[in-house]
């Protein structure tokens, strides 16, 4: 009896397989055809290893065409730009150096500091996300991020600072690294000053 049941089950399985086989083959063919036609995701369709590099190169050229020669040299050599603060605490500050300034890094917080003493004041966390939809990318190239910060600070400092999240120094940036950057900036300016003086001394 048991043997007969097993034989029946085996026959039923073989028949079911024979009936289902054409449908399985059709499903596999359709799946292979779909896979060859449709991308798995937006990045698979658009993946281009040189794309981000080319975007950054274009962004650097745009930045270079907007800022002055000193600021471009600063970014090229040091990786950040200094932007002078527009507000003065005293009348005398209007005539002399800026009372405070910002260090603008790509994709990092803006750092406010006092140029005369080197005292670090605060970090302003701000970003410029493009939410209009572009294959899942929201982040601008590094040099575009710097240019966006530069344009925002030099045109409407109050607005960008209001929108930023202010933190004490050390939240995202290492204070020691920022101080080292200020030292590098001072050295860079000293060397630049020396280079500019050399041609004059030869005349």
């Amino acid at each position, binding site marked *: 009896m048991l043997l007969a049941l097993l034989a029946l089950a085996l026959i039923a399985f073989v028949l079911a397989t024979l009936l289902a086989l054409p449908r399985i083959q059709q499903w596999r063919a359709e799946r292979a055809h779909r896979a060859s036609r449709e991308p798995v995701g937006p990045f698979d369709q658009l993946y281009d290893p040189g794309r981000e590099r080319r*975007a950054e190169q274009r962004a650097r050229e745009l930045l270079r065409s*907007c800022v002055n020669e000193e600021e471009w040299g600063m970014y090229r050599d040091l990786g950040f730009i200094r932007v002078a603060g527009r507000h003065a605490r005293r009348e005398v500050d209007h005539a002399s150096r800026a009372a405070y300034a910002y260090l603008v890094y790509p994709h990092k917080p803006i750092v406010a500091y006092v140029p005369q003493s080197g005292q670090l004041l605060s970090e302003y966390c701000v970003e*410029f996300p493009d939410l209009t939809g572009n294959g899942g990318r929201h982040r601008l190239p590094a040099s575009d991020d710097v240019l966006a910060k530069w344009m925002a600070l030099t045109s409407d400092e109050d607005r960008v600072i209001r929108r930023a999240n202010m933190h004490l120094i050390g939240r995202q940036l290492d204070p020691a690294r920022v101080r080292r950057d200020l030292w590098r900036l001072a050295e860079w300016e000293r060397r630049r000053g020396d280079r500019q003086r050399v041609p004059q001394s030869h005349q």
Partner: protein
Amino acid sequence: MKFLRMKPGHGEVLLAEGDPSVQEDEERLVEEFRRQLDEGMWAAVPVTNSGSGRREAQMVKEFADIPPESERVIFFPRASGG
């Protein structure tokens, strides 16, 4: 005058180009300007400060605010707290 827009993965993209003194071009530029601001972009014009001689940007909120001698307007996403 050129309208450029910063785009992730692209760098700047040319949106429109034209001579604002030509009516047809101006209408096209105004339309594009409004579209970009409607999409949440900020618009800025790189200028040279007449007093200090330093390079800086001027934010523009209306097409009429664009300095007439400007060669380009740069659109970029508005700032938000990071």
